[in-house]
């Protein structure tokens, strides 16, 4: 029991030292942190020296340890005072005399402690070890200690009384915490009882430990430094220390007790060396073990953040559909961070404003943040975040227009989504459902997440733009191709019209020239009917081709319907027929009987056939034959487009479906042909491949579409 007391005093002292160092290095520039460090160091001095004094065997050594430790105790009230002053942002100037007084008294006490027995007259020997005995002037020290301490509490109280209406809720809470911690600490006066021979275990170290934890919590909240980290690290350190201590002490004790009982110092050294090896071997594992223990049992919220990161990296950030991406973002953020509301706003470049694209539980999702708006400007200039609570604490004036936006978004935390130094979007998160504040730890996770989101959003946008660009490229290509068709089209349209005109002209001239004079009116009427029938037939021919052309030129709707392949081949041939005729290319169609219709976008099928037949024609150049054969097999309809052209050289086969690949002469093809053909075919659930090719003999491409019994949307 006693040994536990002695060890725990030692451990607490070391924890103070570590805590002090941690807080100091966390923010060296903060006076609060520096003061805490010194205070923690004084506490360490006191507790560590006392713990050594308790286990000391020699009176003289114990006396010195007592003096060192007590020096720390003398400093504690003044350091408390410093801490309070810094914490309350008071000015030292006004309190110069108090300080001078304080330090004069301290100097006197130190002199008394080291130079005389008037402060401490000697040492008691209790069952827990040596303990200082109060000298005749010790009551003076007690008075100084208690007055100093109460002075600090009074100062806090006065400050609270004076400012409680002006200070923020957080600040009030901090003050309350500090009060609580100081009251707990006053219980530590029991430590003075054994000075006068009362055999009461000096457990003041527990109260000062509590003080440290509570005040750190209060302050650290103030600085947005996550208390979890402080406590976790403290606990991990404490556990580590305890383990190391146990490992160091236990083998040493055991070895000394059972192996080298009463042996010389070499036996002790051997035990020490053995335990040293054990420590070295197990230190890392113990540390990891302790961290995982504290993570698991004390800070389960941390797991949520892991879940957040895991969910975002695996489920959200990989989504390339922009709408889905933002919806998922909002949903997952709300669920995992457990916030009351959330929203994603994206920049509308045209209007130069941010609009809500996805939200949960916001008051008004139509809220708009215009570019030169306060919030946007702040986010764009700082790339930092906006925390409502922080603004209130810092007493930043929030203009009503901005307050309105914050209210509408139900926002507590507003974060920019930055990409290439530009704010492309804004993430707004409401209060946590637990009513806890956002801590630095939260921000450390959410801020990088917002940056990553910006990348994902930009990817999704690029992807959709790419899709659009591809569709546009396909359309451009088509229009370019139609441009090259003009000669053929001209022929196909003008010829029937010319013939119709010629028939009419011939009839009229024949009448005019008296050539029909000998004909009866009935004969003449029959002749006229004959001519008119021919004229109608020719104008119908011309109309059909313009219809085919305009239908072909229109962009595809992306709607699937049941399409008759035979008819589509005919339509495409209507556009290409003259061109093929000019080059003396024979065209043959072999369509299997009862070929089922395929469920595709009609226009896209036309585009595919058009491109492939035209390519075939261009591969032939002049004089040759194109055969288009369609048949059914294995649940598919296959269309072979075979030409007797030049064939494709082996080294070009790999690039065949690459964008911009072409073997055509400049001006004859942009190269998007087969690339787009493949995209269109695949979009319609089909596939295209090169069936066979032989240089000098010809090429066959095959397009396959599944035979679909039911009408279902495929695109």
């Amino acid at each position, binding site marked *: 029991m006693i040994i536990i007391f002695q060890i725990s005093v030692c451990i607490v002292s070391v924890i103070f030292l570590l805590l002090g160092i941690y807080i100091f290095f966390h923010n060296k520039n903060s006076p609060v942190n520096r003061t805490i460090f010194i205070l923690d160091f004084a506490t360490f001095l006191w507790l560590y020296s006392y713990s050594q004094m308790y286990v000391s065997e020699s009176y003289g050594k114990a006396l010195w340890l007592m003096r060192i430790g007590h020096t720390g105790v003398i400093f504690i009230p003044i350091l408390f005072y410093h801490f309070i002053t810094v914490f309350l942002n008071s000015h030292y100037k006004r309190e110069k005399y108090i300080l001078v007084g304080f330090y004069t008294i301290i100097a006197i006490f130190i002199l008394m402690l080291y130079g005389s027995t008037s402060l401490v007259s000697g040492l008691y020997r209790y069952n827990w070890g040596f303990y200082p005995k109060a000298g005749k002037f010790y009551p003076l020290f007690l008075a100084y200690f208690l007055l100093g301490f109460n002075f600090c509490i009074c100062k806090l109280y006065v400050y609270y009384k004076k400012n409680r209406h002006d200070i923020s809720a957080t600040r009030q809470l901090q003050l309350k915490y500090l009060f609580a911690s100081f009251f707990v600490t006053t219980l530590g006066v029991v430590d003075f009882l054994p000075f006068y021979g009362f055999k009461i275990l000096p457990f003041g170290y527990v109260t000062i430990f509590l003080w440290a934890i509570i005040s750190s919590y209060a302050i650290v909240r103030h600085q947005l430094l996550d208390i979890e980290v402080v406590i976790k690290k403290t606990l991990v350190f404490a556990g580590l220390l305890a383990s190391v201590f146990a490992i160091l002490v236990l083998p040493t004790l055991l070895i000394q007790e059972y192996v080298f009982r009463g042996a010389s110092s070499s036996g002790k050294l051997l035990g020490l060396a053995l335990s040293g090896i054990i420590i070295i071997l197990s230190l890392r594992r113990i540390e990891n073990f302790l961290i995982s223990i504290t993570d698991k049992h004390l800070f389960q919220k941390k797991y949520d953040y892991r879940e957040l990161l895991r969910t975002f990296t695996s489920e959200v950030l990989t989504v390339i559909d922009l709408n889905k991406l933002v919806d998922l973002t909002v949903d997952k953020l709300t669920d995992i961070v457990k916030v009351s509301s959330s929203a994603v706003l994206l920049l509308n470049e045209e209007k130069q404003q941010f609009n809500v694209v996805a939200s949960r539980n916001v008051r008004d999702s139509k809220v708009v943040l215009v570019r030169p708006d306060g919030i946007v400007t702040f986010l764009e200039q700082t790339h930092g975040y906006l925390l409502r609570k922080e603004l209130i604490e810092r007493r930043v004036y929030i203009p009503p227009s901005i307050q309105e936006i914050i209210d509408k978004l139900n926002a507590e935390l507003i974060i920019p989504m930055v990409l290439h130094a530009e704010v492309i979007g804004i993430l707004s998160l409401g209060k946590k459902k637990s009513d806890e504040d956002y801590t630095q730890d939260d921000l450390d996770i959410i801020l990088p997440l917002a940056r990553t989101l910006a990348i994902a959003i930009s990817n999704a946008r690029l992807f959709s733009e790419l899709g659009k660009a591809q569709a546009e490229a396909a359309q451009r290509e088509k229009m370019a191709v139609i441009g090259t068709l003009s000669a053929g089209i001209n022929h196909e349209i003008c010829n029937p019209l*010319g013939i119709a005109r010629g028939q009419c*002209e011939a009839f009229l001239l024949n009448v005019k020239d008296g050539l029909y004079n000998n004909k009866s009116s009935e004969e003449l009427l029959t002749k006229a009917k004959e001519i008119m029938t021919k004229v109608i037939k020719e104008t119908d021919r011309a109309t059909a081709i313009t219809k085919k052309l305009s239908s072909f030129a229109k962009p595809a709707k992306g709607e699937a319907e049941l399409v008759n392949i035979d008819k589509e081949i005919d339509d495409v041939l209507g556009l290409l027929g003259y061109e093929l*005729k000019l080059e003396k290319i024979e065209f043959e169609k072999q369509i299997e009987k009862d070929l089922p219709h395929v469920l595709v976008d009609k226009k896209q099928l036309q585009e595919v056939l058009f491109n492939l037949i035209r390519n075939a024609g261009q591969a032939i150049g002049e004089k040759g034959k194109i055969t288009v054969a369609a048949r059914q097999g294995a649940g598919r309809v296959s269309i072979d487009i075979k030409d007797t052209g030049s064939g494709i050289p082996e080294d070009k086969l790999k690039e065949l479906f690459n964008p911009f690949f072409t073997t055509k002469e400049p001006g004859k093809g942009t190269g998007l042909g087969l690339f787009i053909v493949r995209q269109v075919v695949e979009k319609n659930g089909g596939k295209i491949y090169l069936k066979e090719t032989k240089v000098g003999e010809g090429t066959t491409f095959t397009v396959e579409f599944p035979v679909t019994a039911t009408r279902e949307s495929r695109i």
Partner: protein
Amino acid sequence: MSKARIVAIDDEVEFIDMIKTYFEPRGYDITVAVRGTKGIELVKEKKPNVVLMDLKMPGIDGDEVLSLLKSMDPSPKVIFVTAYDDGGKTKARLLKMGAYAYFDKPVASLRELEEAVNKAAQS
């Protein structure tokens, strides 16, 4: 003076029909063919004064027919009636090869075509 003998060669039946509608009532001796080879046979048989001919046709093209006809004796005058348009290059080439005239399809005026036929027959 008797009217000219014409052989018209064009793969487009409707065009041939229209030409016949005009020339036949006017007393021209007109025979038609839809293939170049058939046309050459007709020329050999009928020995026309004028051949009206399309340029691009399945089988033998108009220009090949022209060079064959040029080697004949007597050689008929050849008038091209075609929609083929490459900015006048082919027209110039055909005229250089010995074609008598070149008309664009669709024919703007049948009267003009008739005049050209008559002029060709007389020369």
